[in-house]
């Protein structure tokens, strides 16, 4: 079970995040989670939104370079040690986490780890064997 993440290329200068989020807001697209990674003069804004393809379309129309790719939304307990459990399960199985970011769901006492891994299939197997849940796009939106 994978979810789609929207990533946007931005130059590392003031006003870029504001522009990206304003465009999404005006299009009625809700942001669930977000991370910003930067390297020198450029960066990538990664977003989990309710309508990824619409988000891509509106951002592309505004001149941004946008990608949509598959990531895992891994359910974890909001308690000590739960991230370590996921990380070691994947690590032991030889699955590399390219990057990850986490957020806490308001309603349920849950946290979610958004992770980009190098081998989605293998990660899914390992996590399921360990009894770690993965969220679908719909589940993610209902949190």
């Amino acid at each position, binding site marked *: 079970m994978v979810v789609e993440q929207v990533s946007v*290329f931005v130059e590392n200068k003031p006003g870029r995040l504001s522009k990206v989020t304003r465009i999404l807001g005006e299009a009625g697209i809700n942001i669930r989670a977000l991370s910003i990674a930067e390297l020198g003069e*450029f960066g990538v804004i990664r977003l989990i939104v309710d309508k990824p393809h619409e988000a891509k379309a509106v951002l592309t129309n505004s001149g941004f370079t946008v990608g949509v790719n598959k990531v895992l939304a891994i359910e974890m307990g909001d308690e000590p040690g739960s991230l370590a459990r996921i990380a070691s399960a994947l690590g032991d199985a030889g699955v590399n986490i390219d990057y990850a970011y986490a957020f806490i769901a308001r309603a349920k006492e849950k946290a979610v780890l958004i992770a980009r891994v190098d081998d989605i299939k293998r990660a899914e197997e390992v996590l399921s064997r360990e009894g770690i849940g993965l969220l679908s796009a719909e589940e993610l939106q209902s949190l």
Partner: protein
Amino acid sequence: MFEPEIETMPVKELKELQLERLKATVKYCYENVPFYRKKFKEAELRPEDIKSLEDLAKIPFTVKDDLRDHYPYGILAKPLKEVVRFHSSSGTTGIPTVVGYTKKDISTWARLMARGLATAGVTSDDIVQVAYGYGLFTGGLGFHYGCEELGAATIPAGGGITPTKRQIQILKDMHSTVLCCTPSYALYLAEEARKEGIDPERDFSLRIGIFGAEPWSEATRKKIESALNLRAHDVYGLSEIWGPGVGMECEAREGLHVWSDHFIMEVIDPESGEVLEPGEKGELVFTTLTREAMPLLRYRSRDISVVDVEPCECGRTHPRMLRVLGRSDDMLIIRGVNVFPSQVEHVLMRIPGIGDHYQIIVDRDILDVLRVKVEVTPEVFSDKLAELEALRRRVEEELAAVLNVGAKVELVEPGTIPRTPGKAQRVVDLRKGKI
């Protein structure tokens, strides 16, 4: 080969021939052109001082402005009575340059072109469609006379006069086997033919294309070859020196042979004027050895290339110039290294998804800084920073390898680089005014 004896003449004999003709040309210029006499006197040089090919370096350069300053007839070595034709190029600065030809010049040019056409593989059995412009521009008539001299069936389908639809009809109905035009027109022809439902392999009989008069790349060559189903050759010429026919690619297509019995080709540092060795990149300088109406001594072409004097597999002994890299007017000097915007473009074009929009920025910190801005397209974008960084570095490495000077590559958002109708402003030099 059209003239195998001279085309394969041992280099030593060619040099002897060149020296003999150089001495005669220098004397002829001195005696018949006041402009050259004045130049020699200013340089305290007498025609007798030119005793070897190396002595050529003592002669001052001739530049395009010299031709403009003597517009229209002031640089002719023959009275107008003996001139049978003029060609002229307008240039961008306003005052045209005028080039005169005697009857003998016209026939020498025709032989030179015929030799060049044969070098590209054209024979008297070919049907040659000359789609270069006929008129003041040298392209059309230059090819025309050369084709006739060679004995090929020549179709004067002058570009710009003959509509493209008609060009396509001629290609199809008259089974032209050779097409001569600018590379951009060849691409346009191919495009229009495809729109008409023509399959070049089925409907055309083309086997050779000779393209020139504007800079083009290996990538364009491949594009034209597959679009028109022919083998493309590069041709070089300058309107000030006859026109097309100065250089032509043989079947090896590793540079253009420049005919030593008609020209002495030198490469110079465009800044210092110093003569460079073969293999070094610089500005091409030509001295004509067989022209009557308008001989030129050390004429600066402004074209940047590299000369290759190694033996060619085709057996011709005449040196080769590589495809023109750029114009010396466009040259940037970065930390003492000559850099041409065209070199940057060539590197970027090799990397898929990069290169349509780029900008070169030159600035000075303590040293010169060369920055190349490249727009990130969806084709090269990755959500992983490491991959974007790897792309950035790859562009930097490839640029450094070609330019011999480091460039800092910046990835920018699409649309950041200003679009202008027509020629884009590819180079921004911020050093002006800085010490």
